[in-house]
């Protein structure tokens, strides 16, 4: 029997002191149940195993450092201390840190969230937006210093440098990464000319890629008015973001390749248009020619011949114009070259003349040798500055 009688407050104080002193640093493994993220930012949940359970709290600010969103049924290891709350006479664990008890736990959380979002219709095919055929402005959500960004930029540069890239930089792993990714998607949605968004990250472990498995990212992608392409990790990595995205590319590079045409490809396309137009034009003219000739030969139809002739002429001139358009460029270049060549050679002679040499011309031909000079004939002396025509007999004058 007890010697002293204690008040409730006294015994509670003793319990509080005992528990809080003896269990000030604990590491406990257990399964989460009744998880509640309160609007105040604090988390409340129960940690349990098959035979026991204990209440837990994790304060706002501290829980920012948990890289995943805890879910009921998830096995975690928490670090914290016991606190006693006298007004209610209960004890709880104030959690300081939380980790999944194993990679399997993350996998499980992944499956659960996937199932939930699937039920909510986030993966439905009818919600998938079509990707623009030839986007001129691509938004990228990734880390500004990451290798993924470098790779994507070099792909764009090589394939289709006409495209413009807007980067909304974000953290892609660790604390607050999921929120940061969601914000970046949101920010790009506020730009009016971004045609498609790439959400990208280079390869990493399941933990590294975890931010892309968070609900907040899934919803940001789902709500995006602009189509979203994901390129996260490697070929084998599938994230929740991939399932929600309008298109999942295996890697960041692959995402960029899907959105940009090969430069050569588009050049060929343009050249094909050229050929196609020319062909169609010829067809058109051939068709009209045929029309005219069949009209000419038709028994019943006799239109004034002059009119037909006029039309025929029109066709001919059209053919001429078509050919001209095609040849114009070449001709202009040729003329330019010819002009340049003649200028060059003229210059050459002018230089020689300037030095004091004189050219002799007779009967429209230069006379380069004395033996060819016909002294009885009129001739022309060409100086640098002028020419003198000598018409009279040369010998008589002297």
């Amino acid at each position, binding site marked *: 029997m007890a010697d002293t009688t204690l008040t409730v407050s006294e015994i509670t104080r003793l319990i509080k002191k005992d528990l809080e002193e003896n269990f000030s640093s604990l590491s406990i493994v257990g399964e989460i149940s009744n998880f509640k993220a309160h609007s105040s930012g604090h988390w409340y949940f129960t940690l349990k195993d098959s035979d026991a359970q204990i209440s837990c709290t994790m304060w706002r600010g501290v829980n920012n450092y948990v890289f995943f969103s805890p879910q009921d049924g998830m096995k975690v290891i928490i670090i914290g201390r016991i606190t006693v709350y006298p007004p209610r006479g209960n004890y709880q664990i104030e959690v300081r840190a939380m980790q999944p008890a194993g990679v399997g736990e993350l996998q499980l959380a992944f499956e659960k969230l996937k199932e939930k979002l699937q039920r909510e219709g986030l993966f439905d095919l009818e919600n998938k937006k079509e990707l623009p055929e030839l986007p001129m402005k691509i*938004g990228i959500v990734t880390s500004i210093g990451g290798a993924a960004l470098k790779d994507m930029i070099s792909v764009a540069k090589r394939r289709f440098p006409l495209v413009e890239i807007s980067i909304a930089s974000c953290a892609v792993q660790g604390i607050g990464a999921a929120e940061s990714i969601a*914000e970046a998607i949101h920010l790009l949605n506020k730009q009016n000319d971004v045609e498609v968004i790439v959400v990208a990250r280079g390869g990493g472990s399941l933990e590294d890629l975890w931010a892309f498995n968070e*609900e907040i990212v899934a*919803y*940001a992608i789902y709500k995006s008015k602009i189509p979203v392409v994901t390129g996260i990790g490697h070929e084998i990595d599938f994230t929740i973001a991939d399932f929600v995205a309008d298109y999942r590319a295996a890697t960041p590079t692959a995402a960029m390749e899907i959105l940009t045409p090969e430069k050569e490809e588009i050049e060929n396309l343009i050249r094909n*248009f050229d050929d196609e137009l020319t062909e169609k034009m010829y067809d058109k003219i051939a068709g*009209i020619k045929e029309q005219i000739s069949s009209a000419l030969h038709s028994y019943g139809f006799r239109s004034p011949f002059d009119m037909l002739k006029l039309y025929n002429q029109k066709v001919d001139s059209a053919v001429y*114009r078509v050919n001209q358009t095609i040849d114009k460029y070449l001709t202009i270049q040729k003329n330019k070259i010819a002009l340049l060549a003649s200028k060059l050679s003229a210059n050459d002679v002018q230089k020689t003349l300037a030095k004091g040499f004189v050219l002799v011309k007779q009967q429209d031909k230069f006379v380069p040798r004395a033996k060819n000079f016909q002294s009885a004939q009129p001739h022309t002396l060409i100086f640098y500055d002028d020419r003198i025509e000598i018409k009279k007999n040369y010998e008589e004058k002297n």
Partner: protein
Amino acid sequence: MKKKTNQSSFKNDLQRLEEISILLDSSELDLEEAISLYEEGIQLSKKCLETLTTAELKVNELKAKIDFKNDDDSLN
């Protein structure tokens, strides 16, 4: 600035090329119209090719605004 106009017109030019190609198939088109379309098409393709060969990749970074977080990041 110049790049911007190049960019936005490039796509329009491509679309116009496609349009011209379809228009040239029309039997209602008279010869004069066909020729002027053809000439326009050839000009456009030349322009597009030139734009493509002189293009340089433009990259910019967006900065988040401070009021951003209050918008609508509802979790549930």
